[in-house]
């Protein structure tokens, strides 16, 4: 369609530029989350995710090793490598960090440039080299503990899977993942068959009140979920289901029903009348027509509803908060993140990013592999 009348090349360039801008705006927040989930927690708080490929300056402190203390020429000397201090080693395990400055007071960890010999309190001197080797001298023997050595080190980017390890092993997040699966799969599969039979009846069977029922389904499509919460929870409590997986399966099945019937009916009405009528002339019952002809032909619509329902149940927070017990072992991922991680781990951005990414990874995979059906379902539902 290039070069047709009415299309100007200047406009085409402007179009490309604006599309690229929109895509970037839409993509950047998610990329940020993804990058952050692989970063070390110290690095996250020291520099933004967009600076992830660059080194960051981290400040820390270790102690001079007392057991290296020897008397040389009338002064007591301690030597060692600050990166090997046990308090420090864990943060700088990559081994590529270099000291940029050091100090003797926590207030000012970068008081002296690297390599200089500084005179510090009590007549002591301290020097730290870029590779972390330090020498401390003291006029008297130091007896109790080694004095602290503060320093700032330039640390190369550190991409790690630690966050994933923490998220998937601690905090019951693994359990929450399984719970989400447990809620989602039955709640996706069970409504399909029920809705398909109903949709067939509304599309191809003639009976009084059919129009009324279709109108009712369209009306129920927009009933706010909030209305259902209190009465249904009370109902579940009365009949003994209470807050349980059984309760949430029933709830999701019913809440997905209007959309399922609506989508499937719209699709089934469009199937060729000839096929269905000739099957009936040949003596097929409605049950046979449905099972042998309509159901297989409706596969695209079934698939698109299944994707909708899967995404909706996987991502749901409201229904899970109300219909599942609030005990830790039955929380799904969305509840876990919203209630536990944001509260107790509010400041641990690495863990938050990773937990969020774990919870959105499965829907994203489903989305990108099944996008065709999703789009087709959306269009069937609203473009006439």
């Amino acid at each position: 369609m290039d070069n047709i009348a009415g299309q100007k090349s200047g406009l085409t360039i402007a179009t490309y530029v604006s599309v690229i801008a929109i895509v970037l705006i839409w993509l950047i927040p998610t990329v940020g989350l993804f990058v952050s989930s692989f970063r070390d927690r110290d690095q996250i708080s020291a520099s933004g995710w967009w600076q992830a490929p660059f080194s960051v300056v981290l400040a820390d402190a270790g102690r001079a090793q007392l057991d290296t203390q020897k008397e040389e020429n009338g002064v007591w000397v301690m030597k060692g490598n600050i990166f090997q201090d046990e308090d420090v080693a864990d943060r700088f395990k990559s081994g590529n960090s270099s000291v940029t400055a050091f100090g003797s007071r926590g207030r000012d960890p970068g008081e002296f440039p690297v390599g200089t010999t500084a005179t510090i309190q009590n007549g002591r001197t301290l020097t730290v080299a870029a590779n972390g080797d330090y020498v401390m001298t003291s006029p008297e023997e130091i007896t109790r503990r080694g004095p602290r050595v503060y320093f700032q080190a330039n640390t190369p980017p550190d991409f790690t899977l630690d966050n994933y390890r923490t998220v998937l092993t601690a905090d019951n997040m693994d359990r929450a993942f399984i719970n989400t699966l447990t809620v989602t799969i039955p709640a996706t599969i069970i409504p399909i068959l029920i809705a398909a039979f109903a949709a067939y009846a509304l599309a191809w069977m003639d009976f009084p009140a059919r129009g009324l029922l279709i109108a009712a389904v369209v009306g129920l499509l927009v009933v706010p979920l909030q209305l259902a919460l209190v009465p249904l929870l009370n109902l579940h409590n009365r009949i003994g289901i209470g807050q349980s997986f059984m309760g949430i399966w029933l709830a999701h099945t019913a809440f997905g029903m209007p959309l399922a019937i609506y989508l499937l009916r719209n699709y089934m009405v469009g199937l060729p009348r000839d096929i269905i009528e000739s099957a009936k002339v040949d003596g097929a019952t409605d049950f046979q027509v449905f099972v042998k002809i309509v159901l297989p032909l409706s596969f695209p619509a079934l698939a698109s509803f299944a994707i909708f329902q899967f995404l909706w149940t996987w991502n749901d927070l409201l229904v899970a908060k109300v219909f599942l017990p609030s005990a830790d072992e039955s929380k799904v991922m969305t509840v876990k993140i919203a209630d536990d991680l944001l509260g107790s781990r509010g400041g641990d951005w690495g863990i938050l990013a990773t937990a969020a990414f774990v919870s959105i990874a499965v829907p994203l995979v489903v989305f990108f592999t099944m996008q065709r059906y999703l789009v087709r379902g959306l269009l069937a539902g609203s473009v006439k």
Partner: protein
Amino acid sequence: MNPLLQGIATILAGVGGCVAYFYFSNLVLDKVIFPARGENIGRNINRANMVRPWLFLLPAILALGIYLAYPVVASFYRSLFNRGGDEFIGLGNYITMFGEPEFRQSFLNNMLWVLVVPAAATFAGLLAAQLTDRMKGGNLAKSMIFMPMAISFVGASLIWKFVYANDADIGLINAIRSLFGAEGSVDMLQVPFWNNFFLMAILIWTQTGFAMVILSGALRGVPEETIEAAIIDGANPFQIFFKIKVPQIMGTIVVVWTTTTILVLKVFDIVYTMTGGNFGTEILPSYMMSYMFRDDGRATAVAFIIMIIVLPVMIWNIVQARREFR
């Protein structure tokens, strides 16, 4: 029992139960109640065919009736009672609520959401649909804009926490501010009034893709001849878009608009995870959740207010569907 095993058992029982129900109920209808043989064969077949639709519909009607229709009535009924549910107080819950500044604020905030989010999402979706239409690589661009739809609102909120964070080393916006030399950092979620719009941006971000996909389908359906005729008459691209294409897809634009409006009235997740309703960002769904489990009378009253707001859309939808059906 292990919930996962219980889940698998439920799938088998649920699907098996449905298949068995539909199969055996048809069998019983055809062979036992109205058998297609004997002296009344003609009448029996007709009667069986009159009953059969209801067999097909029964499970769906039960589900819809118990889980969606009954609660509308039951919620309204419950909202007329006090907190414990033992004393009838008429419209007491509603009257107390309207007297509270907190409720009025969440009502007004919600109106703001209803005005801004559907308009912005539909407009952005229309723009994206038109720009990517027939463009090389347009489908890839569409995929990327559509992607947030697969992300949960909780996930989306966390993603945007990395944009709004009150720290130039984490939050993108504060980083941009400090790049331009601004001093200190701003907590975006505590800026009065405007924080509502920052929260709306998250929902717009997730819903634009939905609008784009539907509207781009509609744009493809615009007859080529009308556009060609306009080009021959010397219309410029903007005139073609606003005067030829948009009027022809108006029906779809309205559908997208109303669908997003309904969604806005359901979503409590974003406010709940981002601010917990603090700093003047409460909306009705999150206000309701703060009373859920504490005061059922109040919670159902809020839910019923949401229902009343939705009612015009519901009636309009039904009228449209009836017209189409005829």
